[in-house]
């Protein structure tokens, strides 16, 4: 990456696919699995994480010249914890029911390694604009990943999507999908799918290079 100019769109898009936080970097798994039993939970969690990611990215990037190197991790954690507390209270104000079903997992965004990882690896070294793009891209990538797990688990496990029933009553729901083990299985299958697609991409690139040379 050194010395190479990265375009702004690329900065945003990399979070969606090439460096997808969940499926490629395998970061931030705990909330990804814990709250993805229904699509609406997954969406809320994704949006909350995106907000914290964006705001902490902005703050860290803006303050990056004032934070001493030795105290940076503690400062980052304090910044992140403040925004998480804000999100926690906002969700509680919007929907108490949603807040109850997400439980302590909103507060646990603090220790989502994805956010601290981006603050340390990106926002503390790059300008404000780039950090915003990076935070948004990673956040959207995280939300998409979470939503895809949530949608699969809700359709198979409860036979509904966003609470709307999809199948006639005769549909036998896969209870295992709502249980914790379903989260592991669905993620494993999605990881396999992403691995397979990426392998194919690499192969195709190799072949086109061979043809060219």
């Amino acid at each position, binding site marked *: 990456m050194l010395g190479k100019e990265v375009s702004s769109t690329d900065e945003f898009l990399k979070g969606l696919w090439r460096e997808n936080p969940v499926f490629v970097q395998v970061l931030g798994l*705990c909330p990804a699995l814990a709250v993805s039993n229904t699509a609406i939970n997954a969406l809320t969690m994704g949006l909350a994480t995106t907000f914290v990611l964006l705001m902490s990215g902005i703050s860290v990037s803006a303050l990056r010249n004032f934070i001493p190197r030795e105290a940076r991790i503690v400062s980052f954690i304090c910044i992140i914890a403040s925004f998480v*507390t804000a999100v926690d209270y906002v969700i509680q104000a919007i929907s108490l029911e949603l807040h109850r079903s997400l439980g302590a997992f909103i*507060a646990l965004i603090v*220790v989502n*390694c994805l956010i601290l990882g981006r603050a340390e690896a990106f926002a503390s070294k790059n300008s404000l604009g780039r950090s915003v793009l990076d935070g948004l891209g990673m956040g959207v990538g995280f939300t998409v990943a979470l939503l895809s797990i949530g949608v699969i688990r809700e359709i198979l496990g409860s036979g509904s999507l966003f609470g709307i029933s999809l199948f006639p009553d005769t549909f036998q729901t896969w209870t295992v999908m709502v*249980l*914790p*083990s379903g989260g592991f*299985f669905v993620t494993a299958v999605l990881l396999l799918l992403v691995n*397979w697609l990426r392998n194919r991409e690499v192969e195709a690139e190799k072949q086109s290079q061979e043809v060219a040379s």
Partner: protein
Amino acid sequence: MNDASHWSIFVNAALVNNFVLAYFLGLCPFFGISAKLETAARMGGAVSFVMLVASVCAYLINLLLDAVNAPYLRIISYILVIASTVQLVEMLMRKLSPATFRAMGIFLPLITTNCAILGLALFQTNRGYGFTQAVTYALGAGAGFALALVLMAGVREKLDLGNVPDLVKGIAAAFIVAGILSLSFMGFGGLGR
């Protein structure tokens, strides 16, 4: 005030609602350090210890925060206490047992971002556990975490010797194993009620 018995709190935290396999907490070390049985056991021990200390600290902080009526400071003060506890454990370990300290390496400081520990502190507050209940809960959660980590490491050591397709190797295989482990832990449901 919660009036659950100590036994049921322990069994619940360790087996029925295992932190890793039912609550998905602490997945990063669970997948990161479970390749070797030896390191897995050490990590389990260290995490259990930090959990115990963090639980006691969280209980005291909560008393303080309730006294000054500032619940919105809860998340930030918990995480700061956990970070300093980990630092303390690190210093103690370096002084008392340099060999173990070197063997743990980078994993020790990383315990700070282990969501199982912050999760433990938050859950015990949400449920309104008393002091001894909180300690029991921490012991159970730590035992459950260590158990899951050791089981996983055992399976993965065996899996290394097996004939696994390239595509599945690594993290995907670990997820499938975790899914099956989680299914088998469902069998404990109903215990400790």
